[in-house]
């Protein structure tokens, strides 16, 4: 095994082009478990901790650019938590303080788990994913980036550079069901925005289908929305819960989220 530690984004992209098999590692909250549990032995790891360009967040033309190395702890701090309140709520549900200090938005995107907690809040805010390679960078909608359970649209030489969001400024929330009151992987989760400006309801569920997915409807369809979200989900029975429970819970969560956001 080999560890490559680039000091700049350009160097990281060059290394990734040269070694497309190198597995990127940032906060380590996913990759290290694979290593420690002897489930993966990649030939190379690409340590992104020293790449300054990936850290933090910035505003650009009314948009917010979240660096791939932005941690959940970062996302919970003002003023970012006021710009993206559902993302901040989701971040609070992630693991423990230790995990939130290390785990990153970019890691959540790269892992593309159906249970990725940052994904539903980014979906309802219409986030785009900025991916980069030595060939240049491109942005694609998050819904197109997520292809399947733990599968994303990155080419072998690409890295996640950022998530780019135009904050709606509209009432929003995030909720996550787990069988313990902290430190759980979602049985199912929901982010919702009641967008009065666009006259639209947008919800995204997690852990209730192969990828977190967006469901939207006109504001006027509020009454039928919970049913619509539950019907759109494609949950399965697994260790953490049953498909029937997940559908039921999504209905309840959507009703409650609507109450919160339309009160």
């Amino acid at each position, binding site marked *: 095994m080999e560890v490559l530690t680039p000091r700049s984004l350009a160097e990281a992209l060059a290394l990734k082009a040269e070694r497309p098999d190198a597995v990127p590692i940032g906060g380590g909250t996913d990759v290290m*478990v694979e290593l*420690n*549990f*002897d489930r993966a032995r990649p030939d190379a790891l690409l340590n992104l901790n020293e790449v300054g360009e990936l850290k933090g967040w910035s505003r650009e033309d009314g948009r917010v650019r979240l660096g791939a190395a932005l941690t959940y702890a970062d996302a919970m701090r003002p003023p970012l938590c006021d710009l993206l309140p559902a993302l901040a*709520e989701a971040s*609070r*549900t992630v693991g423990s303080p230790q995990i939130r200090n290390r785990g990153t938005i970019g890691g959540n995107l790269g892992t593309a788990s159906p249970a990725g907690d940052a994904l539903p809040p980014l979906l309802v805010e219409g986030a785009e994913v900025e991916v980069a390679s030595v060939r240049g960078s491109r942005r694609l909608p998050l819904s197109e980036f997520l292809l399947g359970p733990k599968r994303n649209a990155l080419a072998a030489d690409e890295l996640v550079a950022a998530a780019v969001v135009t904050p709606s400024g509209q009432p929003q*929330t*995030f*909720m*996550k*069901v*787990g*069988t*313990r*009151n*902290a*430190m*759980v*992987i*979602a*049985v199912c*989760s929901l982010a919702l925005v009641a967008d009065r400006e666009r006259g639209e309801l947008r919800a995204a569920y997690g852990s209730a289908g192969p990828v977190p997915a967006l469901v939207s409807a006109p504001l006027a369809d509020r009454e039928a929305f919970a049913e619509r979200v539950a019907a759109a989900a494609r949950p399965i029975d697994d*260790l*953490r*819960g*049953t498909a*029937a*429970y997940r559908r*039921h*819970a999504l209905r*309840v*969560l959507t009703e*409650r989220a609507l*109450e*919160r956001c339309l009160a």
Partner: protein
Amino acid sequence: MGDGTVPRMHQRRATTTAPARPELELGRVVPAERRLDGVPKVTGQFAYASDLSAAGMLWGHTLRSPHAHARIRALDLSQALAQPGVHAVLTHEDVPGQKRYGLEFADQPVLAFDRVRYYGEPVALVAAEHPEQARRAAARIRVEYEPLEPVADAPRATELPPIHDHRWTHGHGYLDDPRPNVVRSLVIRHGDPDAGGDVSVAGVYELGMQDQAFLGPESGLAVPDGDGGVDIYVATQWLHVDRDQVAPCLGLRPEQVRLHLAGVGGSFGGREDLSMQIHAALLALRTNRPVKMVYSREESFVGHVHRHPARIEAEHRADRDGRLVCVRMRIVLDGGAYASSSAAVTSNAACFACGPYAVANALIEATSVYTNNPPCGAMRGFGAVQTCFAAEAQMDKLAAALAVDPIELRLRNALAPGDTLPTGQRVSGSLPVAEVIRRCAELPLPEPEELPRDAIRLPGGAGNTTRGEGVRRGVGFALGFKNLCFSEGFDDYCAARVRLFENAGGELVAEVHCAAAEVGQGVTNVIAQVARTELGTENVVLAPHTTATVDSAGSSSASRMTWMAAGAIRLACRAAREELERRGGALAGGEIGVERVYRHPRTWPLDPDTGQITGERAHVAFACAAMRVVVEVDAELGLTRVVWIGAAQDVGRALNPQAVEGQIEGGTAQGLGLALMEEISTRGGLIDNASFTDYLIPTALDVPPVESVLVEDPEPDAPYGVKGVGEPPTVVSTAAIASALRDATGRELARVPVRPDDVVGL
């Protein structure tokens, strides 16, 4: 504290009652000190079993079965042996002595031969320079398996082909049940089992498989002594019983195998059976190098036995006044692939099935079975947890059927000293059941909290799922009891040795040797406290816990160690003091060394046909506890927040009240885990949640404040009137939390852990 000002904790949560038996000669006991191992534990200096190292040390690794049931066709080690850094690869052929071991029955292979019977069963061992080299080599061992149909459904196991060719548990004085796969079956017939009442309630209850989930994984270091013997430094609950199992498998005499207690990161029953002891010793003796083994968390889930899953059919019959007339229960315990302590767990489940109630008639049938599920054995509460869950649900049902207050119903039936248990044993010692019920019921319930509140003080916690919607409050109550010390004629003992000498300053020093395993419960403090009391000196030094210098202390289990260690230390100290007095009160440069053995009152086996006692008692003594629980349940999502628990416990006499409270709080939390979240999930015998991501144990946001009342009613047969305190809270809290959930939801909730689906009614 940096500035030297440490405020005392001036408010105790717990209260105590004065001894109810002033006539007992209890003797003064000096106050407890702070934990003797406390400073090394808070500074990171305490050497746990996984922290040990030695010059030239190798790392051991275990290759385990990926099947729950399979025949081993062939083993090929050649590729593994060729891997870099590898010093040894061993299989069953390399076990020089007995090929099998076991706590009660030697039915478990040191390394599998012919067949594997559970997922994770050890098949081969590797020693290498680095753990990664050992893992890579193990991955190159080729094992040809022929998968066999697993016996996975415990209630049907007695109709399926036997998983063992030999009846290991027959001929040991139990009922030799002819059905296949029976570990032990025990029927207790008491009075007229067909006696009818005015009211009858029935239910079928189930409990999932709970894991001890101690934080310190199985680990240890084996060091060859250069003379054919070996020293093993390990985290265990009973050094001598480990030695007595290890030595025959190594083909060595007991004195050639010395077990030394390394720091124990929790045990809760899960370290009663061997894990890596023989394996590390085999590798060390083969390579002539020290060998360290440290299980991963995933490995730990298959590295020790678990709490038996159970299915319990219960029927309770009572008269119009709510007095129990007859209790009938049929209990099936899934023992998994090997016997471990299933036979004793079966007895406990049966003996405590009725709860601490006076019952004139009973029919209790308990069966533990072999299956290809993970082996089950000892865990805190040991059989009493399972039946308490069923019995207390039944008592709540009975109260509802009779329209009687559930606490009042329990008081009407409360067992008392002088009463007879279903086994025919008379309660001869202390058992203040009614007092415990009353003291618990007196605790004021917390007022409902106002809304809005932060999400973490609502069901669902950090998940932010409710702001009060769907939330209902429920209050529950449960009562339970269990035995203290080993039972049914398995009368063990505890040895202690005291050496008195003078230090350089001419002061008298007592060096105390006792092999009692400090597993976190604080027995080390008990030993020192008793020695300081009996010798009247503060100069007490505890010698290392080892098989090399002192006889057995018995096991840190069965709520026995405080009782037994206190008894042994007291005897040894008194003998040393008498000797000192005989010498005129001075050592004059000499020294005194005495070793004494303490035994608790004798017990007798149960009659294999009737389940009745065959002598004065089958169990030494008993302890009970009651709990009142307030929960909030989000009835729409099925999520729970336990708000508050009030506990009253029969503690005999609390030598160290802070440590007793700690046992109650910790024991309660483990019962909470079983009630709400903890279950090893298996499919066809394969575990699919062997990690702390998937097997959840309670966090700081899940455990409520516990208000403890220590009811002190000294045990006449125990030194200073003490009782073991570790298990009763775990026995009761699962049942009490389930009771509160039923109150909040109106649902039967007959299975734990209670899943959100069950609460919602899907």
